[in-house]
């Protein structure tokens, strides 16, 4: 039996039509899945009540183990148990070789030597690419989502670090596809955190997201403008996190206990680290904690760790993170006092000292109300819920819009806009085009971006050809050009000839390599040249029309001019034709061209009528009048 959730007034869906969507925080160390139920976003636990799924996958000859169990087995089965796979996403074999030494310290895997550009890890279950390993994690999260919501999923929003490049984003999408998940959108992790706090519907301004996890630190400076978060800068330290806090405390314990860490066994060292971690967590609530460690049967140590002592131990590490913050602010060209909000993400931001220091640095109280481990997944769930149309206002969150119009080149070098700028994405638009010449069987499609009327003033994105469709008279072929921009801004253009079904397509990333300043300049130019562009466009249009008229008259005269035209008539037409030809190439004003065209039309009117009659007679010859009355 289906269990129902409470809807917003008037938003109840018909049975079986409620759309379930999940948000996934696919993390380096841990992953989470969240959803919105009865208007409340929350992370979903497994049957033992655990919300965090360790991002660890163990491959055995006959099973794939994901999560806590795999993490536990890591020590015994290091070669077949894969962790931190996120670091390898979208990385080719070449990248890995160059990073191999540093990576192999962190990742104890053997890489398979393959012909493909994709690096694969050797396991007993075969060679595994990073995408496959991530897909195995996603499958577990997907299943948890389905079981918790009691239905099939419409799709998922998956978060990625703001600094992920196109290849890493694509790899993440591929992993989701492999796991059978429909990706509604990839969302930057800091954006997700800001969405969880509802900052996307708040005041426009600049937001900092401070993300201190177990092993990595990320800072993102973002600007909210008209509901869209734009990442101004990112920074961080891939080797700074809560684990370093534990190490600092462990060192302090050993120093207090007068023990040299070199004399300790690995398991004792782990014990000290875990006690250090416990003490750190307890100090978020208590002023001081007692630590008690049994080093050997006759050697135990008991001591007190106070909040102040902890602060002095971790302050150097926090300072390091704040230096990254300062750099990120500088990169973004933003002053501290411009920051409206600071959002805290990552378990290590639970440490009160971190909150205090970050608050002092940014001169504002950081946002800490939502569990910092879950805040990213929760933001993703809110976005996913809105994207499938379950949002309370029924509005789609406008997280992204096209910065510039997209279109194609038409005859005469004109830019025909298919999707105009500021259209929210994802979006799909189609328009029909036709052929220009008789017997044309191919068409070049030139995809352009920009606001100007002439292709020369726009940015060329891609060119491709649609070939091999049946020959038609000019203007009879129907070619449907579809522009589709997905949620990540990836544009695919498809041209299809409707009769034969011949298809050609291309994919491009319109924003690739485009700086904001360039976008701004392109927009400014389109305003500044608006008048000139309008004139240029209408002139080009008339030139195209003139070409068409010239083409038609030439082909007609070549066809039957000898039989149907007297010498005089022929000369009159030729004279008008030459005049139009000159105007076509020299006229700077639309009016001149129009006049020349009118002249030629007048000169050839009689001839055109005669041709029409001849063709009607020809087609009626041998038929009875009755046949035409039917």
């Amino acid at each position, binding site marked *: 039996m289906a269990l129902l*959730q*409470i*809807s917003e007034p008037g938003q*109840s869906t*018909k049975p079986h039509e409620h759309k379930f969507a999940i948000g996934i925080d696919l993390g380096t160390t841990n992953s989470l899945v969240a959803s919105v139920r009865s208007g409340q976003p929350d992370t979903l636990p*497994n049957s033992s009540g655990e919300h965090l799924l360790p991002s660890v996958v163990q491959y055995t000859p006959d099973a794939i183990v994901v999560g806590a169990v795999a993490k536990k087995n890591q020590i015994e089965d290091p070669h077949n148990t894969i962790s931190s796979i996120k670091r390898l996403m979208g990385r080719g074999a070449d990248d890995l070789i160059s990073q191999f030494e540093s990576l192999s310290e962190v990742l104890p895997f053997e890489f398979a030597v393959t012909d493909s550009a994709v690096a694969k890890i050797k396991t007993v279950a075969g060679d595994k690419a990073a995408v496959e390993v991530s897909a195995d994690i996603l499958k577990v999260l997907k299943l948890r989502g389905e079981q918790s919501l009691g239905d099939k999923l419409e799709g998922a929003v998956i978060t990625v670090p703001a600094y992920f490049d196109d290849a890493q984003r694509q790899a993440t999408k591929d992993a989701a596809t492999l796991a059978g998940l429909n990706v509604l959108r990839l969302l930057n992790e800091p954006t997700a955190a800001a969405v969880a706090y509802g900052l996307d519907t708040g005041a426009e301004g600049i937001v900092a997201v401070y993300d201190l996890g177990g092993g990595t630190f990320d800072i993102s400076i973002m600007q909210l403008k008209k509901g869209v978060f734009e990442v101004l800068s990112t920074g961080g330290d891939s080797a700074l996190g809560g684990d370093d806090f534990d190490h600092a405390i462990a060192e302090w314990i050993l120093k207090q206990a007068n023990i040299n860490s070199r004399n300790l066994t690995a398991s004792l060292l782990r014990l000290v680290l875990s006690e250090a971690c416990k003490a750190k967590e307890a100090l978020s609530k208590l002023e001081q904690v007692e630590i008690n460690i049994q080093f050997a049967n006759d050697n135990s140590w008991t001591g007190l760790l106070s909040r102040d002592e902890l602060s002095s131990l971790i302050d150097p590490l926090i300072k390091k993170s704040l230096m990254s913050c300062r750099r990120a602010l500088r990169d973004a060209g933003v002053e501290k006092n411009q920051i409206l909000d600071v959002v805290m993400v990552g378990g290590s931001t639970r440490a009160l000292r971190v909150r205090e220091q970050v608050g002092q640095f940014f001169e504002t109280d950081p946002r800490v109300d939502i569990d910092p481990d879950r805040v990213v997944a929760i933001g993703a769930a809110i976005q996913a819920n809105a994207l499938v149309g379950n949002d309370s206002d029924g509005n789609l969150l406008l997280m992204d819009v096209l910065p510039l119009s997209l279109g194609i080149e038409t005859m005469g070098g004109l830019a025909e806009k298919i999707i105009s700028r500021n259209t929210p994405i994802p979006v799909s638009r189609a328009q029909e085009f036709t052929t220009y010449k008789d017997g044309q069987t191919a068409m070049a499609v030139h995809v352009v971006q920009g606001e100007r009327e002439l292709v020369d003033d726009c940015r060329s994105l891609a060119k491709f050809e649609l070939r091999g469709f049946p020959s038609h008279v000019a203007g009879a072929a129907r070619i449907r050009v579809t522009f589709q921009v997905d949620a990540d801004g990836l544009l695919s253009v498809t041209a299809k000839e409707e009769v034969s079904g011949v298809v050609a397509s291309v994919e491009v990333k319109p924003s690739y390599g485009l700086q904001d300043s360039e976008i701004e300049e392109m927009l400014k130019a389109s305003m500044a040249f608006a008048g000139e562009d309008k004139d240029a466009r209408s002139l080009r249009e008339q030139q195209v029309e003139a070409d068409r008229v010239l083409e038609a008259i030439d082909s007609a005269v070549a066809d039957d001019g000898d039989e149907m035209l007297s010498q005089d008539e022929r000369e009159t037409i030729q004279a008008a034709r030459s005049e139009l030809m000159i105007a076509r190439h020299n006229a700077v004003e639309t009016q001149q061209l129009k006049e020349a065209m009118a002249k030629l039309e007048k000169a050839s009117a009689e001839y055109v009528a005669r041709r029409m009659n001849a063709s009607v007679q020809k087609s009626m010859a041998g038929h009875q009048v009755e046949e035409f009355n039917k």
Partner: protein
Amino acid sequence: MAVSITEQGAKRVNEFLANRGSGMGVRLGVKTTGCSGMAYVIEFVDEVNDGEDETFESNGVVIVVDKKSLVYIDGTEMDFVKEGLNEGFAFNNPNEKDACGCGESFTV
């Protein structure tokens, strides 16, 4: 004529209302669009239509039912249940004669 809610159900409704930050209760109703005749509707309540709606109070929760729906769900007890990982509201409706397997719709 009355509808009610279990203690557990009331607790969750109040949680969801608190999370939403507004709303006076929960509206129960039926829609005639299910695969098996009728479908249940649960929504948050922002306003009550005088003359069309009846309100009940059960375990501290205001339940609003429009008069047309009430004939189909009179005597219904609303509960919050967990089935494995899945959780949500379920209806114990004495008028229900047959439900489609999905439980989202029923006939009387």
